[in-house]
C-alpha cells in the first residue's frame, strides 16, 4: 500500500500521541474483530479458518500420520502457502521459521507418542487466502484453533511394543476419538505469536496494514500458558522510516502481550468449544 506523505504524517502523528489514536478507533491492546470457525475439513484431523475485518484470511489443516519414531527427525512439520505467491519466497520462509521456532519448542511432544516405537507425526499446513497486514499473528491464531480442534483416533492395541513388534491399531469409531488438546486441561495449550507495532513511545498490538506502514519498528512476541516465551524478536513491519527502540518499548510490549494473551486464549477456547460439531459448512 502506498500512502501519500500527508496521510503518512497524519497517521504517524495520531499514533504517536498519548494515548494513541488508531485509525479504526481501537485501543492499543485491542485486536481487530475476527471471525473464526473450526473442524470443517472432512479429511483433516483438525482444521480452522480465521478471517480479519480487513479481508485477511487463513485456513489451517492439521493432519496426522503414524510413524516410526526413530525414523523421524521431527514430529511436527509446518508448511505455509500463500495464494498467488511463490513457495520459496523470503516472506514465506521467514513466516515458517518464526512459527517453527515457537511450535517446536513449546509443543507438548509427549502427547504424540503412541507406543514405544510409534508416534503420530503432525503436519500443519497453512494456507493464506488473502492478507493485507503481516499475517504472522493471524496464522498463529489459526494454528492454535486447528490444534485445539484436532482429534486423534483412539489406540486399541497395546502401548508397550518394546518386545513384540506390532503395528498400532485404532478404534474405527470417530466418536471415540480423543482430542489432542483436551479442553479441560489448559496448562499445555499450544503457543501463540503476537505482532506488536511500535511508534514513538507507544506500542500497539495487531497492527493493521496502515499502521504497519508508518510504524518505526515491530516485535514478534511468543506466548504460552500465560507466560511470555521465546522467540521474542524485532522485525521491520515496513521498509520505511524505521528507527531504533529502547528496552522500555520491549517491556511495554511484554506486559501488553501478557495481558492480551490470556483474553485471546479465552476467546479462542470458546470458539473451539462452540464449534464442536464436525464438518459443517464454513461460510
Amino acid at each position, binding site marked *: 500500500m502506498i500512502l501519500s506523505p500527508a496521510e503518512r504524517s497524519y497517521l504517524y502523528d495520531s499514533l504517536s500521541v498519548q494515548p494513541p489514536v488508531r485509525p479504526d478507533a481501537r485501543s492499543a491492546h485491542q485486536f481487530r474483530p475476527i471471525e473464526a470457525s473450526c473442524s470443517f475439513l472432512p479429511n483433516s484431523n483438525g482444521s480452522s479458518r480465521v478471517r480479519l475485518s480487513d*479481508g485477511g484470511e487463513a485456513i489451517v489443516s492439521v493432519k496426522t500420520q503414524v510413524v516410526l519414531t526413530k525414523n523421524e527427525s521431527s514430529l511436527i512439520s509446518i508448511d505455509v502457502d500463500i495464494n498467488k505467491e511463490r513457495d520459496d519466497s523470503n516472506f514465506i520462509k521467514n513466516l515458517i521459521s518464526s512459527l517453527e521456532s515457537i511450535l517446536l519448542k513449546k509443543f507438548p511432544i509427549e502427547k504424540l507418542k503412541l507406543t514405544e516405537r510409534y508416534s503420530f507425526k503432525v503436519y500443519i499446513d497453512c494456507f493464506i*487466502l488473502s492478507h493485507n497486514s503481516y499475517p504472522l499473528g493471524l496464522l498463529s491464531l489459526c494454528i492454535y484453533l486447528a490444534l485445539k480442534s484436532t482429534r486423534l483416533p483412539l489406540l486399541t492395541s497395546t502401548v508397550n511394543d518394546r518386545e513384540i513388534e506390532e503395528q498400532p491399531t485404532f478404534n474405527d469409531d470417530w466418536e471415540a476419538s480423543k482430542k489432542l488438546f483436551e479442553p479441560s486441561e489448559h496448562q499445555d495449550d499450544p503457543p501463540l505469536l503476537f505482532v506488536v507495532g511500535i511508534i514513538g513511545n507507544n506500542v500497539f498490538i495487531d497492527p493493521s496494514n496502515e499502521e504497519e506502514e508508518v510504524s518505526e519498528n515491530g516485535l514478534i512476541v511468543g506466548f504460552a500458558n500465560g507466560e511470555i516465551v521465546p522467540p521474542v524478536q524485532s522485525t521491520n513491519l515496513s521498509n520505511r522510516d524505521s528507527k531504533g527502540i529502547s528496552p522500555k518499548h520491549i517491556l511495554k510490549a511484554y506486559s501488553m502481550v501478557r495481558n492480551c494473551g490470556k483474553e485471546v486464549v479465552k476467546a479462542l477456547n470458546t470458539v473451539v468449544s462452540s464449534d464442536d460439531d464436525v464438518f459443517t459448512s464454513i461460510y
Partner: protein
Amino acid sequence: MEVYSPEGLRADGRRWNEVRNFKCHINTHQNSSDGSSYVEMGNTKVVCLVSGPMESPSSGRKPNSSSNLTVSISMPSFVSNSRKKFKKNDKRIQELCIFLVKTFEQIVIMKNYPRTIISISIVVLSQDGGLLPSCVNAITLALIDAGISMYDYVSSINVGLYDTTPLLDLNHLEENDLSFLTLGVVGKSEKISLLLLEDKLSLDNLEKLLAIGIVGCHRIRDIMDQEIRRHGNLRLSKITNK
C-alpha cells in the same frame, strides 16, 4: 468396493440419478475480493474469488494480445486424503485452468470489458471428486456476485457410466473406477459449453449420459439461482430498510 449394487444403490447410499449434497453461498469474502463464492458438492469444497474488471497492469504496452480472463487454481497440500504438495505449475492444474478460461470466455460478455482483466482465483479446500464441475459452478456464482455481465448461468456436473447405467455426480472413488463425462450447460437450455471426456465411452451410451447430465445441471442451476435470489433479496431489504 462395489460401485453400484444390484439393488440400485451406490457406495455412499445414493441412487443412480441423485446428486450429492450441494451447498453454495455467494458474497462470502466481501472484504478481499470483488466477487466471491463458496461451493460444496458433497465433500468437495471450493472457494472462488474474483477480482475485476480492473485495469490490466500492462495495458499500455500490449493491447489485449492475450485473454482478458485469467483463472488460477490453488490446491493446498491438505486437499486430498494423502498429503500431497501440488506445484503451482502442475500440468493437471494448468489444464483445468485452460478449460475454465475457454468456457467462461464464451459466457462472459467480453465485448463489455475491453482493455480490462478479470482475474479468477480458486482455492480448493477439500477434494472428493467433481473438481472441475465445482470450479465451474463456483466461478459462475462469483462472477455474478462481482456484477460481471454474462449471457447466462453455466452449471456443471459429471456423469459416469457403470456397465449400462449412468451415474450422476461421481465422488472420488467412483471417478477412479468409471469412465466419466464432465459437462457444463448454459442456463436452462440444452446448450453445452463444456464437455470433457478423458477416457473411453461407447457412442451409443453418450446420449443417455448427456440426457441425465443436462437434467443434473439444470437442477444445480436452480439451486444456484435460489441462492442468488436469496442473497439479492437480502441486499434489497438492507437498502430499503435504510
